[in-house]
């Protein structure tokens, strides 16, 4: 088993290093993982969805994992999804390749209505959270005092602050 795990990890790393573009705009039929023979649990599926919908690229994996850990530990975050919509979460997650971060776009018409609703609710939820907003707006971490209290007066350079 140990040897198998090592090979799996190596393969996952290789998969993660593939350009995100390879998984964008895809026809979202249920994805049969070549790596995992088993179905992901609802929690694993939710984790997978957060990672692929969120804004973190492969170089931010550690930050992304930290976010997922905090998201999953709080009842108020997971209540809309688990256990009430466990099957939907699993089904939606199964349409995407494993290990993907920051997917670029999703063709909605290929999704069943319920999964589309779940997806949109999750996107709205994630991108309304201060943590995610700060990440995409390139704001300093929320709640930490700054040495520059005129930070808010600065012009964003090339669209970034």
């Amino acid at each position, binding site marked *: 088993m140990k040897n198998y795990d090592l090979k799996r990890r190596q393969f996952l790393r290789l998969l993660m290093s593939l350009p995100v573009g390879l998984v964008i705009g895809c026809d979202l039929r249920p994805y049969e993982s070549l790596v995992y023979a088993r179905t992901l649990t609802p929690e694993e599926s939710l984790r997978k969805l957060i990672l692929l919908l969120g804004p973190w690229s492969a170089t931010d994996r550690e930050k992304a994992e930290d976010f997922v850990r905090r998201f999953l530990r709080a009842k108020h975050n997971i209540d809309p999804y688990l256990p009430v919509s466990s099957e939907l979460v699993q089904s939606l997650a199964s349409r995407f390749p494993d290990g993907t971060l920051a997917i670029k776009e999703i063709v909605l018409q290929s999704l069943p209505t319920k999964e589309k609703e779940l997806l949109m609710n999750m996107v709205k939820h994630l991108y309304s*959270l201060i943590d995610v907003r700060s990440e995409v707006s390139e704001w300093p971490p929320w709640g930490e005092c700054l040495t520059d209290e005129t930070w808010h007066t600065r012009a964003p350079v090339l669209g970034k602050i």
Partner: protein
Amino acid sequence: MYGDAMTGEIKADYCIAGAGIAGIVLASKLAASGKKLVILEQGPRFAEEERDNMLFDSKQTLNDLADYNDNVEPGVVTPHTSASHGDQVAEWVAQRLFGLGGTALHWMGFSLRPLEDDLKFKTLYGFGRDWPIPYAELEPWLLRAEHEIGVAGNEDNPYASKRSGPFPMPAHAFSYFDREMFKPALKRLGIVGHSCPLAVNSKLYRGRSACMACRACKFCPSGARYSPDRAHVPILEKIPNVMVLENISLRRLETGAKGNRIAAAHAMRVKDRTSLVVRAKHFILALGGVETPRMLMLSADKDIHKDGLGNSGGQLGRRFSDHTNPFVTCDVGRHVGGRLGFETMISEHFRAQKDRREQPSFVIFGSPAIDWIPIADDAAMWAIRDDTLSLEALRGIIPQIATLWVMTELEGEGTLKLDNSKLDAFGSPVAKITMKLTDWDRRAHAKLVKLAPRIGEAMGAENVSEVTPPEFGLGFHPSGATAMAKSPDEGVCDTNLKVFGLDNLHLVSNSVFPQMGPNPPTLTIVALALRLGAHLEGGVAP
């Protein structure tokens, strides 16, 4: 000196119920007299360490709405009060807080003044109520209040009424958004954007830090935002004649045999439900816009106050009012820059309008997207093209989102009564609030529906959301149900905030406002607390 708080009876000169901003500021003024003073607060005391933990936990659990009363035992907090308008119900959930500091534990620090016209509303517009005191009498107390809590502001507001002195410190610098997008857009529409007065230090003030831009204002790690428990309570507790008691719930006031004085305040210890009686020369209710009228109702006796204290004219609970805060989000098409935890620019243009007889006045606030608004609700829809959700586009839109919101006045046709079907943890009925939106009230919403796209367009916005909420919402500034007036036929307390018919009971909260303009009420509450303190100690003018 006080009797024994452990055995159940306390004697004092002043008994103040409520340790929010009104009660604490008033106590600070009365404490200098050397007289015995006891302050009762139903909620707990929040130590600095607890504040740190709340901030830490909110980050650790991604709970952007975390607040002070989240983990307070249910018996401490009066059950949530809701207000209804027809079949629409709005809840006060965490908006009013119980604890040393009250709702000012988490307020944003907006410290706008009333306008002169707000105080003579009925005279000018033919409906609503006038204040029984003129602006000229209130103004020096507003100035003193600005110094008491530390308000940062500039005298750049062309719509403001006359001031008799400068702000104690300069306003916060305008944000990039204010300077480059909001102000020019307002200017194109003939509106002046100006600084927003805030009780958030722009420099070191009375030993408290300047704002350090952490943006978590609710918990304010730097201490720059005024909070009563940080600024005034530590000083009060060093004074030997002052006793501040938390976790004590006032249950009712007892009238004396002749019915013209309060003889005692009956309270209960929250932790063990044992009773405590306070006998004092003066009683002051400083319980906020809902609990102050509720306490006067709960204290009804079987004699001349059978309809509640101060209710000989039938005015108790009448003309309850609030603000509404509808908002929109806009995608302005370019990065809006950074946001402190508060707006640095606002406009009071629509307060000074001349058609107030036709529609309510309001204040407009604009800034990069506010934390508590679910901005992705609309942004995600704007990122859909040809049935494809572009998350890449959404990640580009989020930094471009600005929020515009207004604080609008209401005519004040609500009522507050006791709800005998719903009891608090001590068995007393909670408040039942029924709002009644008038056609006049609705016109402010209609105005924003037209105005928001125009401001958005002037900023170059590609998308502007619908106005939220669609019609009925609350601003969480309950007011008006124990109005100050010249006679009992018009209100509950007189111009010195003494309850009609009771010689030793005073009120201080936004419930005494006869009419509330569209400015947040806090600065006016502090001004009235300072004025009451001077009155009780001999009528010293500011």
